[in-house]
């Protein structure tokens, strides 16, 4: 059972990690917590489902889902955060919470209140590994997450824009003085964070065969905990935080009590804040 629970934890955790990457990058560069990250995740899932319903093509649905997440992310950056730049950090935080409520209400109006199923059934096929049963879908979810993380790492370290983003994150004034377009870096970060959350939303819509306007709230909060756990602002930290959180809550539910499954994320969060406030890989900023 232990091995099965760890696999379960890794699947959930790799999705938290994708969303946590969005939190951590936006925090790293803008110093704000984008509480609407869970709603971006939800719009990604809906974008994919609506496209799939309209065209019947999964190859179109996935990019369309990512695109809709990116559009929501860019609109947020433009209208919820850019006007508030330079203000007291509490103000963009409140704006983010407001945007999150606005977006889930908007989704309820646009898509209706009901859960929707993902119109392709991927079945239950899988294989036994030691004492655990792993489905192909679980493997695909983990593989896609890993590929996304590698792509992000390559972008941040190899590309010119990625380096610019890192420079802005280190010191935005110095970056501006050396000729880096800071506004563009902000937009890039929102784009990347939203795309990752969009992918996470689509993966989960497929995995659970269900989407709803409220689907982003809980994963959003858990991913936020994962980002804190790994050290806000740290990209490897967000990944480790996500995985640790996924495994912790599955083991907690298995060996302590499933009544508190969702509470474990937040228990872990509180423990981190008490014991090591900058998280596992945080820089102490």
């Amino acid at each position: 059972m232990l091995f099965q629970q760890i696999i379960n934890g890794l699947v959930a955790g790799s999705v938290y990690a994708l969303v946590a990457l969005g939190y951590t990058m936006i925090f790293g560069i803008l110093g704000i917590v984008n509480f609407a990250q869970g709603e971006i995740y939800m719009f990604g899932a809906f974008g994919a489902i609506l496209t799939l319903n309209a065209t019947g093509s999964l190859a179109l649905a996935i990019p369309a889902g990512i695109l809709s997440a990116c559009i929501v992310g860019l609109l947020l950056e433009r209208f919820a955060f850019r006007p508030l730049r330079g203000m007291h950090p509490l103000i963009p935080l409140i704006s983010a919470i407001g945007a999150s409520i606005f977006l889930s209400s908007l989704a309820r109006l646009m898509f209706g209140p009901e859960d929707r199923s993902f119109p392709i059934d991927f079945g239950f096929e899988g294989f036994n590994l030691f004492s655990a049963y792993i489905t192909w879908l679980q493997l695909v979810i983990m593989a896609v997450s890993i590929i996304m993380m590698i792509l992000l790492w390559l972008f941040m370290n190899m590309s010119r824009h990625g380096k610019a983003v890192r420079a802005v994150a280190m010191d935005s004034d110095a970056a501006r003085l050396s000729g880096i377009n800071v506004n563009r870096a902000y937009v890039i970060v929102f784009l990347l964070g939203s795309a990752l959350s969009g992918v996470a939303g689509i993966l989960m819509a497929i995995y659970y065969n269900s989407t709803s306007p409220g689907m982003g709230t809980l994963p959003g909060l858990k991913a936020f905990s994962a980002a804190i756990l790994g050290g806000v602002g740290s990209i490897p930290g967000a990944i480790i935080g996500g995985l640790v959180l996924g495994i912790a809550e599955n083991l907690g539910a298995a060996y302590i009590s499933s009544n508190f499954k969702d509470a474990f994320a937040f228990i872990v969060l509180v423990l981190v804040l008490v014991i090591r406030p900058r998280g596992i890989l945080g820089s102490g900023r």
Partner: protein
Amino acid sequence: MKNILWSAILVTVMVFAGATSLYAEDIKVGAILRLSQGASDGLPAKRGIEIAVNQINAKGGINGKKLVVIYEDSKDSPQTAVAAYQKLVSVDKCQVIIGPMMSGEVLAVAPVAERDKIVVITPNGTSPKISQAGQYIYRGCTTSERQAAALTKYAKDKMKTTAVAILYSNEPYGKGCNEQFTKYFNELGIPVVISESFMVGDRDFSAQLTKIREQKFDLIFIPGYLQETAPAIKQARQMGIKQASMGVFGDMAPKYIELAGKAAEGHLNCSEYNEDYNTPVNKKFKAEYYKIVKADPKEPNNIMFAAITYDMTRLVADAIAKKGYSADGIRSYLDTVKDFDGVTGRLSFDNDGDVNKQGVYLFEVKKGKYVKVQ
């Protein structure tokens, strides 16, 4: 220019005067439903009321007066339900309220309604506590007690169940079902080998299901709301849990089958409403309901909730027509009504204000459709 302005003002005054004079003659009934949070249950309930109101008004209303329903959103919160109740009673002067929909909300509104002497009819609060909530409190569905009795008996007699695993929703409804069904299973000599829970909003049940899979049982019972119960059974099947499955009446919706997909096959649950109930009233109701649902792809479809509120609205209208518009008049009618021709059966109320009908229908999913088995 001045003339246009004056005529605009005149028209506005006339419209308002007309509206208020019409309004004064209307019969106002309140409804507290789940219109934002939980709207996939609340909207069908609202449609049921609307269909009844349209039919009544098309026939000339109640004793020549139009029936108007004022809707309030409970937002799935007992506090909001009480605030909605207070608005309906003090501002709109309603004497009767249909709703709220959740047991917790009903139990919060009940003492206030009892004090004010206002009739409250919940369409689907199933908690046994509602029976004792007061003389003005009525209920349009059977209690979870009767549903538990019917389902557990069927599990023993027909499915030859010998041991049960339970995965319940950790809120008042799912928790109540867990306790009640456990009691009934135990009385029938069927042990509950494991009882795990999940939270509203959860979509990942793998930790609980991994534990359940290690046990020996031949029926998995998943009480809760279909937003969670459908993904839960799907995941159970994905993890290789092949035993028979059973749920409660929240699963009785096309949405459940859509969300669970192939995993829904063989799922047993109960319902308050049988679409094939062969009466003229039901045929007419069904036709009008599906006309609304099919016209809008976003419209949630759960005909059972619509059927219950449809019956309750017609009962209220009948009461007002026969006994006048007062809470005590409506109450005296509801207490004495016999064999009312509802779409959910022939209706009357017992001393606790709980509805009496033929009983609970049991359904099973066969080839992606609900089929009545008892």
